């Protein structure tokens, strides 16, 4: 383990919720991932999928069934 | 070196998928790149990263962020 940091393996009292370690880098990465997912989902559903008409629709008889 | 050789290699590998899809994204803005042009853009980005990585680091380590 690196000796240059405050946190060492001996620091077994280290608990989540303590201020000693906040995974801010993880939050940053996962925040980026969240944004990418939202953008990609919108692109894939609304542009690729809905722009790929014609699409299977409920016929007159079956419309109003399970939605 | 600002990053380890292995770290640099991973960073450069990460450029590959970005370069491949850069064309698709640019096409949205009506910029049409040929294959050759995309390859050149990719090589330019890779060269820039290599130059950045091999320069001696500044004092503050935060400059190492991409």
């Amino acid at each position, binding site marked *: 383990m690196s000796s240059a940091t405050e*946190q060492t393996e001996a620091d077994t009292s280290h608990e*989540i919720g303590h201020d000693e*370690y906040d*995974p801010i880098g993880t939050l*940053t990465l996962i925040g980026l991932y969240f944004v990418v997912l939202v953008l990609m989902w919108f692109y894939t559903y609304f542009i690729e999928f809905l722009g790929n008409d014609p699409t299977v629709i409920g016929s007159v008889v079956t419309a109003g069934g399970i939605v | 070196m600002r990053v380890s050789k*292995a770290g640099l*290699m991973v960073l450069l590998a990460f450029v590959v998928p970005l370069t*491949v899809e850069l064309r698709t994204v640019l096409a949205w803005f009506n910029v049409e790149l040929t294959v050759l042009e995309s390859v050149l853009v990719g090589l330019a980005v890779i060269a820039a990263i290599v130059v950045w990585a091999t320069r001696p680091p500044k004092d503050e380590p935060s400059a190492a962020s*991409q």
Partner: protein
Amino acid sequence: MSTYVDNFPEEAAIVRKAFYTSFVFLALGGVFGLIQTLHRTDFLRFMDSADYYTVLTAHGVFLVIAFTIFFLVGVFTWAVTTSLDRGLEDLRLTKLWFGLMSAGGLAAAITILSGFVGDAPILGALDADVLFTFYTPLEAHPLFYIGLVVFVIGTWVAGADWIRTWWSWRKDNPNERIPLPTFMVITTMIMWYIATLGVAIAIIVFILPWSLGLVESVNPLLTRTLFWYFGHPVVYFWLMPAYMMWYLLLPKLAGGRLFSDPLARVVFVLFLLLSTPVGIHHQYLDPGISEGFKFIAMTNTMFLLLPSFLTAFTVVASMEHGARQNGGTGYLSWLGALPWRDPAFTGMALAGLMFAAGGFSGMVNAGMNINYLVHNSLWVPGHFHLTVGTAVALTFMAGAYWFLPQLTGNKLWSRPLAVGQTVIWFIGMSFMSNAMHRAGLIGMPRRTAEPQYENFGFDAGVGSVAELDAQIALGGALLTVSLLLFFVVIAMTAFNGDSDYTESNSIPTPLSGPEDAPQVLDNLKLWTILAIVLVIIAYSLPLASIIDGRGLFGPGIEPFDPIPFSVVSTTLELTAEHVTGVIR
């Protein structure tokens, strides 16, 4: 503190055997993958297109059944013995399951490979050109199905072996929490027992008697549904050992500690509960299943994202913990403080990164109506080459770089080459999988020897179909290079007997340990019952409605040999026309 092989020499021998077996299948599967990628993109076609499907069957079964599961049983054996700190209860049982799995795998492999050689002596046509999904009424030789069943029974016995070891540990340690690695193994195996019931019934009750001619007909929708009842949880069966390695090894390799033991337990419980009642999402476009059932399957599938989302945070936070202990700072620059020199770390981290991308295409696959866009298109192999083909396969390869020294006491041969191998895999898969996704969106089908049609083409939008094909072929070639490097490193390490490897086979304690986990998480009986209830809720009505009106054995549906030998031996085009004419 010593290596695994020092502590458990006999178990290490079994794990080594399992790994080497899995690598043999990886090598074969990889060769078939290269042949396929060059054939379908029309860069190199040296075989008849009918043989493509034999190659595809071998590629699928060898890689996703044999490679993954042989590696998995090795990892699970390591996890149980390491975390319980005791050997397996009875090595005769261990040898039994390894023997069963090997025999079953060999039988299935022989039937598949005999698709290349024509009639076998005495036994006749053994072929099994039915792909990994073996949808009826496509028919394989009965030996293929028997092989699969024996293989699965082998895994059942393996599970019993681990559970038995856990029980005897429990007797000695009545009040202790189940160690996390063992917890992961047991929850995964319970999921596997529930899931394999579907494929066991499909084969033993319906397909095998039918292929032996004891039953006249089969109900294709029923066997299909039973297959997917198994077919989705099986992907989590491949994935769970990879997750386990991310949870246990990545923090260790990064110099940190697991962020949260309790959340890891939650994740594995969620997988046990939700992996199985979702299989109908593979059947969104099947006639004969009502939309309501499909909607329920979608809801379950979407919630199955949750444990993977949680895993992403927990594992990355554990890596970040290591990076910060090694001097990493900032929002993103701590990434530079990760041990990229270590091939085991780099491979797993890149595998995790690709899994994030594959996760996105999985979310699309989970969506019900958007399935019209992507179903059975090349998008789907694009997706699962990121998940099983990278998140699992690359994690296993990277894991092997850590495991093999533990199992042999030999130092890893050439770390730089091993790092290069994982990076080349990443680059190759970037090209191949990305282009596959794109090709899928323009409607190019999967599982096709020649996706070039006479009367129509595909509209590529940006770029061209030729460029997509080139990217797929380039990616496939790079993946082959990567595989070659992997085998070189593995072989050199295995024979690297002069070196002395002494790193300890220990897992650092989590930041938030099991004492923070509610006791109920370890109540495996409760989770098993809940998992079964969820399966009953999700599947009883769809199965009843499929059986109702069609019967258990379907309306006179006879076996169909997908590639009769007469076809392979004559010119394909002529035969195809002839057969088509006859049917008309």
